[in-house]
């Protein structure tokens, strides 16, 4: 199912978190909401899930306006940043929780839970309680619990922020593969641009409660646009430079780097913003040099 936010605004104690947010995510898409902390990403997911009521605006899942539906009626799966597994239930019971609510037959519950236990490679831990699982295992269980109910939309809020690099890469691969197989529309919140680039079919850059840019991950990293997006999207791959000589097609710039003993001049391919901002320092991506 597609999901669409129309004119969503939300404030907490006078502080505006979302400003007239419009966003449409297509059916089957893996969409990443990328942005710094406090940019409104989690609030956007909470509005989609019905956990937070917006001050203005509507939420559509498919063609249905779900703005006034409570979370339990929206047919969504939600994976929380801290996994939020039920501490008093075993792995099996955690995954089966949503199915029992739907009054699925016992045999069918066992079949579906076992399928996901195997799919996420955690069958041996099915009788354990969450406190006995590693971070990666908890993450997989949370994902299985959200997927087993066959949601129309899967929402994931920085689910891998607590994982180490190795585990993160493994779980990312698994997630991508599961999403492609199930075809569930997925909205994934992160502030990690590498993760966003790997997972997202499209990426929305969200800051100050507004979507600054929506593009495919390839386009976004090629043409990040404003300095904010450049600095956020490509923060690890930028050069701080001062223009020396520019024309419409190319510029000669000086790299500002305290670590260099002497100034270095480089030629920049096609960087039209150079002329406009020649007084200030610029950020360049390595690919543009």
């Amino acid at each position, binding site marked *: 199912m597609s999901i669409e936010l129309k004119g969503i605004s939300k404030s907490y104690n006078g502080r505006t978190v979302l400003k007239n947010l419009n966003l449409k995510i297509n059916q089957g898409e893996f969409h990443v909401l990328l942005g710094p902390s406090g940019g409104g990403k989690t609030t956007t997911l909470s509005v989609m*899930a019905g*956990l937070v009521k917006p001050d203005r605006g509507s939420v559509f899942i498919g063609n249905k306006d779900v703005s006034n539906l*409570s*979370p*339990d009626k*929206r047919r*969504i*799966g*939600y994976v*929380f*940043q*801290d996994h*939020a*597994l*039920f*501490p*008093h239930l075993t792995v099996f019971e955690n995954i089966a*929780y*949503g199915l029992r*609510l*739907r009054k699925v037959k016992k045999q069918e519950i066992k079949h579906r839970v076992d399928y996901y236990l195997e799919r996420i490679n955690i069958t041996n831990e099915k009788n354990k309680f969450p406190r006995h699982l590693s971070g990666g295992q908890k993450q997989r269980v949370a994902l299985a*619990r*959200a997927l087993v*109910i066959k949601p129309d939309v899967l*929402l994931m809020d920085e689910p891998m922020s607590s994982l180490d690099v190795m585990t993160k890469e493994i779980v990312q691969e698994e997630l991508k593969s599961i999403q492609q197989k199930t075809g569930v529309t997925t909205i994934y919140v992160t502030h990690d641009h590498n993760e966003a680039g790997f997972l997202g079919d499209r990426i929305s850059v969200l800051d100050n409660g507004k979507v600054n840019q929506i593009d495919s991950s390839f386009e976004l990293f090629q043409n990040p646009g404003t300095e904010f997006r450049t600095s956020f999207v490509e923060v690890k791959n930028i050069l701080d430079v001062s223009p020396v000589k520019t024309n419409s097609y190319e510029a000669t710039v000086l790299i500002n780097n305290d670590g260099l003993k002497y100034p270095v001049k480089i030629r920049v391919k096609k960087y039209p913003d150079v002329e406009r901002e020649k007084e200030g320092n610029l950020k360049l991506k390595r690919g543009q040099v």
Partner: protein
Amino acid sequence: MKNFFFEISILFITAVFVCLIVLPMFALFTTTSFEELIYQFRSPVILSAIVISLETSLIVVFLSLCLGIPVAYLLAMKDFRGKEIIDTLVDLPVSMPPLVAGLALLILLGGNSKFGNLLSSHGVDLIFSKKGIIIAQLFVSIPFLIKSTKDAFASINKNVINASLTLGASKFHTFKTVLLPLAKNGIYTGMIMTWSRALGEFGATSMVAGCIPFRTETMTVAIYQNAMTGEPAASIAVALLLLVFSFTLLLIFKLRIKVQAG
């Protein structure tokens, strides 16, 4: 040298505290004999006081659960105007002298008040009855259950509750299957504290229900009555029984917590 004096001071103060608790109990245990205790516990008046105390205090625990858990849920999970006022009202009976609580209840429920008259006209007489004991005990002891349960609810990760909702559970189902099981230790603690407080209640109970043997005389009232009428042996017997109750309840609770933590 300074460290030595510090350590010694701490040990000395702890010893003073232990004496403060143990010496009065020791005095109770050493001023009577086993035969005397058995004799007193066979007395119909004492037996009746024990039964009344157990009966009323257990009803109070049950009523505290029914009334206290919803209030605790409201205070822990909801933000609303006037929340601080309700929160303070919950604490009030704890800080209020029990005699004042008893007096307030006596005025409200007595025959001279409109409310008391209204109840009387419908055949409900609360003053000088077991029902009065229950109301007095409930008034002073329910805050313990509410506070303990509220803290337990408030300590539950909000995302766990949200997870239940997004998986399709209604708020009531989430309350039943997630909140109550996760708050059970807090609820048990509240129950034990409420029961102890209800068993030990004297001031409010005696004001509302009086001291009528076989009708409204609870264990604490029996201790007072017998001590004042020159029957210290009966007072000591009941006091010892209360002490054993309290100690056993606390011990069971602490062992339970230890087993769960281990």
